[in-house]
């Protein structure tokens, strides 16, 4: 399938320990998929493998973005090709202002010799910050430096809105957000939903999925997708806990 983010039989390890153990997942353009799964099941590992983090070694499997081999690209090439990861723990970059950072990220997408239009850039950034109820002072502040947990997450969504990716993975963007912030961020994501864009939302809480309603819900366990369903699966999980899935797995094994 060429109009999707397609992951087949993905195996990845860190320091020789296998964490992703044959994971398969397909997110067609226009859909929102959610992944839920216990701590340590490998959700963030999946997101970082897709982003190209060098700590993780892919030993088997493929990941294609609209038919293009994502794993063959450098980290920055993946981003420019349209992949975006909103980090669970965004890094701090002291001394680099948020505005300069975003500008450099957009500049990197332009052909050589072409300069970003500064006026248009600020206008767009302010609009998007307003949509996320982010104070203008965040443009001058250093990237994530001294930001609260919730402010960092909002900043990730701002970056996503500015970079307009084809596929976005949101790794626990909801954790650390108060209920108002959660609604604002969900609204931002919903405004970006389009037939041209796919989302993978990693979360522990059904609550987020009330605001960002998923088309498909996956359950991840020990490095694999073990169950897939519609949004009622999230409700069922919340009610019965992960034991229910593991017990079911044990029965079918």
């Amino acid at each position, binding site marked *: 399938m060429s109009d999707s983010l397609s992951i087949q039989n993905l195996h990845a390890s860190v320091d020789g320990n296998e964490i992703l153990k044959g994971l398969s997942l397909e997110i067609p353009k226009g859909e929102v998929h959610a992944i839920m799964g216990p701590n340590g099941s490998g959700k963030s590992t999946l997101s970082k493998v897709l982003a190209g983090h060098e700590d993780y070694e892919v030993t088997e499997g493929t990941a294609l973005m609209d038919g293009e081999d994502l794993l063959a690209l450098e*980290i920055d090439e993946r981003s420019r090709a349209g992949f975006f990861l909103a980090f669970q723990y965004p890094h701090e970059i002291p001394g680099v202002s948020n505005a300069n*950072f975003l500008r450099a990220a957009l500049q990197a997408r332009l052909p050589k010799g072409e300069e970003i239009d500064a006026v248009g850039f600020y206008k767009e950034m302010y609009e998007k910050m307003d949509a996320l109820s982010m104070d203008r002072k965040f443009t001058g502040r250093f990237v994530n430096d001294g930001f609260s947990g919730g402010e960092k997450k909002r900043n990730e969504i701002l970056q996503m809105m500015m970079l307009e990716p084809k596929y976005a993975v949101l790794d626990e963007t909801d954790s650390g957000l108060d209920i108002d912030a959660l609604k604002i961020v969900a609204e931002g994501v919903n405004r970006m939903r389009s037939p041209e864009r796919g989302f993978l939302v990693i979360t522990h809480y059904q609550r987020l999925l009330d605001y960002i309603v998923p088309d498909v819900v996956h359950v991840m366990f020990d490095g694999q997708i073990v169950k897939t369903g519609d949004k009622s699966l999230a409700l069922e999980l919340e009610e019965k806990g992960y034991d229910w899935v593991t017990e079911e797995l044990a029965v079918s094994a």
Partner: protein
Amino acid sequence: MSTTLSKAESETKPEQAVPWFAAPPVHDIALDLPTWYTEHQSESWDRFLDLPDPVRKDENWRFADLRKVRFSELVAARPVDNVETLVQRAKKERVEHFAAHYVFANNRLVYSEVADLPDGAVCLPINEALVQHGDLVKEHFMKEGETLGGEKFSALHGAATLSGLFIQVPRGCVIEKPVLIHHFSGGDFQAVFPHTLITANENAQVSVMEFFESVGDSEQNLVIGQVDLVADQGGNIQYVSLQDLSDLGPKHVQINSSRAGRDAKIKSAFVNLGASWVRNESINRMQGTGSDCQIYSANLANGSQEYDQRTLQSHEAQHTTSDLLFKNALYDDARTIFSGLIQVQPGSHYTDSYQTCRNLLGSETAEANAMPGLEIDADQVKCSHGSTSGQISDEEIFYLQARGIPAEDARKMISLGFMNESISQLTGDEIKAHLFDRVARKFRGLDQ
């Protein structure tokens, strides 16, 4: 251990040095100078002749490469002939809004432009100030008795200086925009001696930015500058030195002295990008209750550049505060030395004092030395000092790359950000932007 050390030292001990100068390097401005000044000059010259060259045994010269401070056959700088080009350069490389702008080339004033100086503020080349306001100059001129090792340089400076600016801001007067001073220097074995004397009287305020630039390329010239900053009660001074001399050749010594009276604030900064060897000394005395000194530095050293910086934060009254943040980014075989001392003098209770030196090592062969120090003789004191050295973390690069920024650009951005942490502490958006751009320009030229 100690025997080998002293043996090595005696082996490398230089033969009794030839004097750096054959005669006092006073330049040729004919003036009716006050007697106190000419006496100070000749006393300074005698002291210069008496003082030994720096030696390695001296704690104040620890880690310094003393081969870089052996001089001979130096002369006072001679006039340059391409003055017009220099003035154009100075006009191109300045912040847009300023109160006044002075350009010196090899000790001589070659251009001045007063844009927006409030009434009452005195802003004059020091040689004119000596003639017109001799007593005002005398009150604070080179009054700091101590140095942090640079006494021979300071004595020479005292014997020679006749260029630079005298600024006196009277009580309650605020100079909103910065005063800019360019010092161009060049010519092999020629020396310049810029002096800056800034006094802010009660509740007065001024910001000064000084630029050190080379006339030519790779000339073996020497700059020995000294800066006196004196803020009376409630006074506020910011002083920024941007040293961007040619990378190969020029050597730059600058000795800053700050004295803050009651509730006064003095912010001073060294930004070093050029020169083959730099020695910065910064003595900060918080003399009045509630006074505050902030000292910042951002230094980008590559090739075989050596930046040697020594500081003193001396708390001499109660409720005084000070903060120091020095940042060095080093590449190739560059060396930096930071030696800082916080002294809380007896009875200076309720002092808050901080001192941080951070080094970003961009190569295996670069060498950053840091010697933080603390002496406390008071109660209810909050002090901290520390230094770190490290490389850019892979996680930071990953984060930028994950947003589409190529690894090489990511490194440069992070390094620039590292320097900017110090620059961003200064006051004035145009000043900060100018410094940021100058540092960025040097980064662009580096292969990391």
